[in-house]
Each structure stands twice: as C-alpha cells, then as structure tokens.
C-alpha cells in the first residue's frame, strides 16, 4: 500500500484499487455493493472527518468496477495493472 497525493492504492497482480481519500463521504455504498467484499471501512479519518474505505482484501478483487460505478463522489476507481 502506498499513498500519493491523497490517493490510497493497493494492487494485486491484475487490478489496482485507488481511493481518493478527501472526496469520500462515508456513505458505505462501495462496501455494500462489492461482490467479493474487498473493501472495509478504514480507521483513519480524512480531513472532513469521514472514514474512507480501504481495499484490505485486495487479493479477492475481480475488477468488476461496481464500486467505481456506484460511488456518488468520484472517490474510488479501478485500474488494470
């Protein structure tokens, strides 16, 4: 895991999940919608006092992009490695 410019990224050998920390409003939709339960709520607050998601179980990510589609705040996106 590394963080550049407020973006938290984790990758397995196929996909990389990026969370733009300061845009998140902690609605929890990405955690709810993920079919393989990659994301969990992190314990670190962003600058507005919300807890953004953290892709802890990144090995299970299948790259379906449902979290990217359902995020209302443009805060999470998936890239192919």
């Amino acid at each position, binding site marked *: 895991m*590394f963080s*550049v*410019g407020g*973006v938290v*990224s984790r990758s397995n050998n196929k996909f*990389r999940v*990026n969370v*733009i920390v*300061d*845009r*998140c*409003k*902690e*609605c*929890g*939709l990405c*955690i*709810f919608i993920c079919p393989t339960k990659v994301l969990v709520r992190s314990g670190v607050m962003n600058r*507005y006092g*919300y807890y953004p998601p953290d892709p802890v179980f990144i090995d299970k990510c299948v790259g379906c992009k449902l979290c990217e*589609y*359902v*995020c*209302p*705040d*443009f*805060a999470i*996106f998936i*890239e192919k490695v």
Partner: protein
Amino acid sequence: MALAMHVHPLDKHLRVKRLPTIFCSGCGIGIALSAMLRALDKRISEGSVNPNKVLWVSGIGCSGRAVLYLNYDVAHVLHGRAIPFAIGAVLANPELKAVVLGGDGDIAAIGGNHLIHAAKRNFDMVVVMITNFIYAMTGGQVAPTTPYGVYTTTTPAGNPEYPLNVIKLVGALNANYVARASVTTPHLIEQYFYKALAMRGFRFIEVVATCPEMFGRHIGLRDSVEMFSELKKRVVYRHRPSLEEAMIDWEKGIVIGEFVERNNPSFIELLRGVKK
C-alpha cells in the same frame, strides 16, 4: 513501477478544485452524474460529440447544483426555467448539444409547462430528470412525484394524492425518446444517455434516485445503504415496456426501461424546412 499520479478517469470532465460535492452522503445525484459523464466520455472519444459544443443547463435544487462541477459550458438559471434557456441557446446556435439536468421539483413541478411544450415541439435537447420523490433542498415538502401514502413534512398523515407519472406525460406528446433508469442500475443510465446523445429531437430520461437524508429519514431509511437496497428491491426492469406499464409506486414497484423510441423530425429541421 515508479510513483505515478493516479487520477480518476472522469477528472478531465470535472472542475476538480470544487470537489467534494455539496450533496449529502449517499445521494443518488452523484451516481447519475458519473454515469452520464462516462457516456459522454465514450461519445467524445468516438468523435461523434464535440466537447466544445456541449451545453449543460440546470435550474434550482439539489440536482441543479450538479452542473457546477462540470468542466463544460454550464448555466445555472431561474427555478424551472432550464428548458426555456436551453431552447434559446439552441435556437441561437443549432450546433449545440444541450443537456438539461434537473430534479423533479424543477422540471416536473415548476417547469412543468415548459417541459410539455418542449416535448410537443420535439425540440433538440436531452432532458435528464432526477426524481427523488420530494423537495429535498427546502426541507422535505410534498412534490408532484411523491408516492401515495408516504409521510412528508407537509403531509404528516401520508400523501393523499397519487403521483404525477412524467413518463406517461412526455410519452403521450411528440418526444423522440423516453426512458427511465434508476441509480441502482448505473449501467442503464450510461446506456440510455449514450443512446440519447446521438438521437435528434426531444429526449427525456428519468433517473429514480435515492435521498436518504430527506425522503428516507421519515420512512425509516435514514442509512444510505438501507435506502439503496430498498430502492433496488422495488425497481423492476422490463425490456421495451409500453407506456401503460410505466408504474411508479413505492409499494408496488418502479418499472424501468425504454418506453418510447421514435425518429420524428426535430424542431430545428422543421424550422429549416428539411422535411416537408
């Protein structure tokens, strides 16, 4: 790999400095907006839409604030008057692709007459109406689209009226494309908006959205995930449903799909006398 900057794929369409948006946590407007931007991105990369000729217009309300985050020509105009503004802009410059974005209070209630006449003229524009069943920004009053029997702050014994079905209204007029999607199906919003961008005439897309803060809090759905999953249970997809099937009822279900698809000549073409 070196430490490269990772940017969101839609950042080039957004005024990034204004983010995060003012919408409440779990609001459906952001989902609809990102789906529409994805469709527009596809059209721009294909070359069928010129990004310098896209105009976004919105009125007042929560949904009206959405266009202010877009890196395009945008206009934020009087309450309910987004459609007349877009008509004026397109008449002055017919090259423009006008997209009107608004809520149900802006487009169906206060701008209702403008909606009817723009649909009657088959005027060249895309209208996206984001329905959250309530006047959310002013404190949760009853709207024309509020379902029957639902508690709002001005109807404490439940809404005594049946809602206005805007899909049936616009479909009965001369509109070329009428569809309804839901924020629980963002791929359908993207697909319908992608299709609508290439058509001519009046194109109307209704997006049923979640509002956990104002609609959900009085009916026990204050949590955004709960509201999202409740709406997901109520949404029914049908392939090419008829206008009679366009039910929008909180108890019985919300039918989504493409209701009307026509290829009638648009107002600008009729004005130029292309089709006699």
